[in-house]
């Protein structure tokens, strides 16, 4: 019953399971592998961008040969400004929609939730697979835009109009792809919720669900309810582009000296409202399952139950509900008026309370435990302060007065990457180290894992801390030349090179991780049934294949 990959003839079995499997473990692994591939793609894109930001105007080493002098993306290895924008949009889109959410919910969720609630499979096994296919199609469509006439979408992962409606590139691919991703996440969310509600072991009450399952449940509800408005907005934007409507275009817009020939009457702010109505809950989709994983790894390595389980569950629920009421804190700069600003400022400050409760409970769960510093535990322990930095740097952004100077600077980039990279990604690595034995029957090589942990922690802080500083000095995000041609932020310009080299170092360290996984699949130490002596069902209850 262990993973397909390690058996003789494993590749064929793996491919079968990958495309056709209806077992939740096969579907989960398929999401996981694909999500990780997309993560490395997103990282590769960021390496290109960072090289450009550190050495603006210099052609890429090596790539110049690969791309001839007339290549539309990088003629002679020179990254053009528009292509920088396109890569930026693809980095954000890939990381959020195609990598991290699929890994967290599609991968860990599909694989572990049924096991943890004692269900034989997902409630709708074939829909599980269909959802995975939609995800693959979504990736295909979005990435096909690289080969389209104008190249990929260039309006950022936020796709703000008017640019997104007017640009002549891959925005259509982006919209169609996102609609596929939406269908995929809809199927995923319904499946997980029904599995938990209907297929729980008889007699297992809701307050007996592991904290991890709770976080997945809340996450599934967020995906279920927050994504549809973005799909609707995507439909409206498609119609603007294909049918010539003006949902997002005001009248009298002048582009390149010409008044646009559209009826007008629409509003670019409408898009922002619809987009952030999804995208704020989406950030909780990015962090809640990570909290769930850390909340599983910690008790397994302290030998004590979570401190304040009930409070954590209630906080997760409150956070989920509240996340629908904070979206316009991304829009303080749009002139919504003081009343609206005050409302969204208040809700945003309120929503930080449950995060503190959960974070605090995780820390208190360490108290008095016999802590074992196993590799997964290291990631979980590092998660706590990193999540803390991410959260605290968010506070100034919650208030209009401090948000206004920081809006759209590298500070924001630093802030949310502390959450999604040093927080979520670390939880993902911890989760991998923790559940790898459950999947493969073997342990990851301990030394390599610890090395990966230490070096990643170092490199990532060297990437994102300088970005916070640059942002405080006023450096904008999305700058093609890393700020070289701007008067502002001169004193922090030199940090660009350090950041870039740290990103490259981080990428090299990931090779270590990949090698570790491949090596351990074959030669890792056999793990036995329950290597961490954990008490959740996925370890204690053995299941027939």
């Amino acid at each position, binding site marked *: 019953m262990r993973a397909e990959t390690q058996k003789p003839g494993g590749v064929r079995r793996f491919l079968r399971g990958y495309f056709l499997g209806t077992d939740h473990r096969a579907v989960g692994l398929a999401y996981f592998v694909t999500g990780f591939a997309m993560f490395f793609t997103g990282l590769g894109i960021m390496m290109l961008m960072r090289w450009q930001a550190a050495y603006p105007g210099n052609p890429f080493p090596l790539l110049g040969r690969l791309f001839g002098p007339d290549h539309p993306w990088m003629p002679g290895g020179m990254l053009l400004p528009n292509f920088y924008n396109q890569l930026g949009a693809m980095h954000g889109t890939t990381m959020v929609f195609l990598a991290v959410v699929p890994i967290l919910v599609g991968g860990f969720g599909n694989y572990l939730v049924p096991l943890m609630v004692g269900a034989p499979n997902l409630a709708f096994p074939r829909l599980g697979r269909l959802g995975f296919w939609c995800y693959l199609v979504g990736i295909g469509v979005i990435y096909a835009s690289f080969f389209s006439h104008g190249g990929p979408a260039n309006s950022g992962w936020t796709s703000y109009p008017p640019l997104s409606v007017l640009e002549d590139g891959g925005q259509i691919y982006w919209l169609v792809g996102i609609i596929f991703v939406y269908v995929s996440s809809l199927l995923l969310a319904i499946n997980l919720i029904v599995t938990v509600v209907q297929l729980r072991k008889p007699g297992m009450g809701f307050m007996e669900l592991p904290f991890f399952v709770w976080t997945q449940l809340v996450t599934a509800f967020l995906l279920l*309810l927050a*994504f549809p408005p973005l799909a609707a*907005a995507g439909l409206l934007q498609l119609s603007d582009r294909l*049918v010539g*409507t003006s949902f997002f275009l005001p009248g009298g817009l002048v582009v390149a000296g010409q008044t646009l020939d559209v009826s007008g*009457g629409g*509003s670019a702010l*409408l898009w922002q409202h619809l987009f952030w109505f999804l995208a704020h809950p989406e950030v909780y989709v990015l962090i809640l399952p990570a909290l769930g994983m850390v909340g599983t790894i910690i008790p397994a390595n302290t030998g004590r139950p979570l401190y304040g389980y009930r409070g954590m569950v209630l906080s997760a629920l409150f956070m989920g509900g509240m996340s629908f009421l904070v979206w316009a804190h991304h829009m303080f700069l749009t002139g919504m008026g003081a009343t609206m600003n005050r409302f969204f400022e208040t809700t945003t400050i309120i929503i930080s309370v449950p995060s503190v409760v959960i974070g605090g409970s995780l820390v208190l769960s360490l108290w008095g435990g016999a802590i074992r510093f196993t590799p997964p535990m290291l990631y979980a322990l590092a998660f706590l302060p990193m999540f803390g930095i991410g959260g605290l740097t968010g506070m100034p952004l919650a208030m209009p007065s401090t948000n206004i100077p920081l809006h759209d600077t590298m500070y924001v980039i630093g802030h949310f990457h502390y959450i999604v990279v040093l927080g979520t990604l670390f939880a993902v690595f911890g989760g991998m180290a923790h559940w790898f034995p459950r999947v493969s029957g073997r342990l990851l090589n301990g030394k390599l894992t610890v090395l990966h942990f230490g070096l990643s922690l170092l490199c990532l802080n060297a990437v994102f801390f300088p970005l916070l500083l640059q942002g405080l000095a006023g450096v904008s995000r999305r700058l093609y030349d890393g700020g070289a041609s701007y008067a502002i932020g001169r004193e922090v310009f030199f940090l660009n090179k350090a950041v870039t080299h740290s990103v490259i170092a981080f990428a090299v360290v990931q090779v270590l991780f990949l090698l570790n996984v491949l090596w351990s699949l074959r030669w890792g130490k056999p793990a036995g049934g329950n290597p961490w002596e954990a008490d959740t069902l996925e370890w204690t209850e053995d299941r027939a294949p």
Partner: protein
Amino acid sequence: MSVPYAHTPRPDTGMTNARLGMGLFLAADAMFCGALFSSYAFLRTAAGYWPVGREVLPMRLNGLALAATATACAMALYAWTGARGTRLSTRVRAGSSAGWGALSLLLTAGALHQALENAGPPAANTFLAIYYMLSAVVTVHVVTASTLSAVTALKSARLGDNLLLSRLGSVGLLWAFTLFMAATCFISFYLL
């Protein structure tokens, strides 16, 4: 390995998996349509001038389509609540629900045609744009619900009692939501 509670309700939740799944799907659908109606409200409040629906749009045909949808919905719910009766009557009710749905589609097609002729294409202004958009979304719902009704009617003889009841329930829910959408649409354009 068969999945539990696919055909019979789970005792403590009182639902089959499919019913809960349909409920969740409709919740997502409600958010989807809610976003479109919010866009309608946003555009309308922001607009300097908003046409009077009764004067430019085919109110009569839209009204008749709404009535046909309502009948289809009533039939679908009747098939569900009366499913303990004979197979044949269930089949007739579910089938006629599909028929009324088809009629509603025909009337909608007529309405859209008239709107295109008399009022103009979607690109003409945001009023028409959102009218066509919402009409299209309602139409997709009617198509889906009618198809599911027809399939259930055709297959009803071969489904076990519990499964049939569960299917009819899901389709009934979908029809109820569709009617709600269609009515909201009508009210937004003609009565408000």
